[in-house]
């Protein structure tokens, strides 16, 4: 429970932090609620921790000129829940289910995304929302689509010299509803199956298009394209939603552990996909 020795450096500005991580053997410390437990178990032992926790320019949610929402990477889960981002039903569902009060008060949105735990809730939400990530390095800034960002367990498209600064979400729209449904591991609280669903209405009571993303099920959070195409243009009836949800794990090697083996997890992925889609559809204003 005692981490290996490390150097600690508190960044005074984003540029200062970028300079500090350029050296190599450094990890960025935000809320610390994923990194510090791993260090205490000695599953990771960075030579230097670069603490960006006091960089206020990375905190908070603001509205961009084009109507989109920009979430600073150091925004905590608790602050995000109090922000306009909670207008998204799926975030209102997912955020209170993350960790406990202490974790939500300290853990950061950017930290969760950069850490990329394959069973964390937020990546599925961001995938469904088609979020855009902004990363800064000493050589400049770039935007990265979230689809494809999660490359493996704890592996992302961030380069070692980059810091995630912002997460951009689409603006709200009246013809969409969203929801998040999850089955949690009773010990850790992480998702055995987590499903983020956004449904955009079509003609009449039907579904126009849908974005569906799952976490905890495969090696990385993923978009369930087969479910999406089955839902697109469908009548939105319980039978058509159930038929679409049956494709929740198409093409995915489903995780298996003693909490949920492959058969059970696959079955629950279908069940929770159906529930998330039905809840999302019910929320269209």
């Amino acid at each position: 429970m005692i981490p290996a020795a490390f150097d600690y450096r508190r960044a005074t500005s984003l540029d200062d932090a970028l300079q500090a991580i350029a050296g190599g053997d450094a990890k960025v410390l935000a809320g610390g609620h994923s990194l510090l437990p791993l260090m205490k178990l000695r599953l990771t032992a960075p030579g230097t921790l670069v603490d960006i926790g006091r960089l206020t320019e990375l905190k908070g949610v603001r509205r961009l000129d084009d109507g989109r929402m920009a979430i600073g990477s150091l925004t905590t889960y608790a602050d995000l829940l109090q922000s306009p981002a909670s207008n998204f039903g799926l975030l209102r569902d997912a955020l209170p289910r993350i960790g406990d009060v202490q974790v939500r008060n300290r853990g950061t949105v950017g930290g969760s995304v950069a850490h990329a735990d394959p069973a964390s809730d937020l990546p599925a939400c961001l995938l469904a929302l088609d979020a855009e990530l902004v990363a800064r390095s000493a050589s400049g800034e770039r935007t990265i689509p979230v689809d494809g960002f999660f490359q493996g367990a704890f592996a992302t498209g961030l380069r070692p010299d980059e810091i995630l600064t912002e997460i951009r979400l689409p603006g709200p729209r009246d013809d969409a509803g969203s929801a998040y449904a999850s089955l949690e591991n009773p010990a850790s609280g992480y998702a055995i199956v987590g499903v983020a669903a956004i449904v955009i209405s079509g003609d009449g009571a039907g579904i126009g298009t849908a974005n569906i993303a799952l976490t905890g099920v495969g090696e990385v959070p993923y978009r369930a394209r087969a479910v999406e195409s089955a839902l697109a243009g469908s009548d939105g009836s319980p039978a058509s939603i159930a038929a679409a949800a049956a494709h929740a794990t198409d093409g995915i090697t489903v995780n298996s552990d003693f909490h949920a083996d492959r058969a059970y997890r696959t079955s629950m992925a279908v069940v929770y996909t159906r529930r998330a889609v039905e809840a999302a559809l019910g929320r269209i204003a």
Partner: protein
Amino acid sequence: MIVDGQLHGGIVQGVGQALWEQAVYSDEGQLLSGSMLDYALPRAAWMPNIELDQTVTPSPVNPLGVKGVGEAGAIASTAATANAVIDALSGLGVRHLDMPYTSQKVWETIQSAKGGPA
């Protein structure tokens, strides 16, 4: 107050034994539920309100008439929870299952009773 608290804790511990707590080993003998990330304990928020009642019968075998109470709740609640689960599954012909009744085990039992997977 102390006795009520002891009973609350014991009852919850007993429910945990029936539904979640387990030492799971791999085929190679490695303990898989070796940390709090994998060993599920019952949490306060998962529990219903508990109503307590008691009979007061002082022990005749010591001068103070006192008895131990720490384990009393844990003994009955495990059996009561287990019987409730088996009762719920009895319509499928289920007579016995080994504890704990995790969601996966209950699901597998239902599936196999229906002639499905597992």
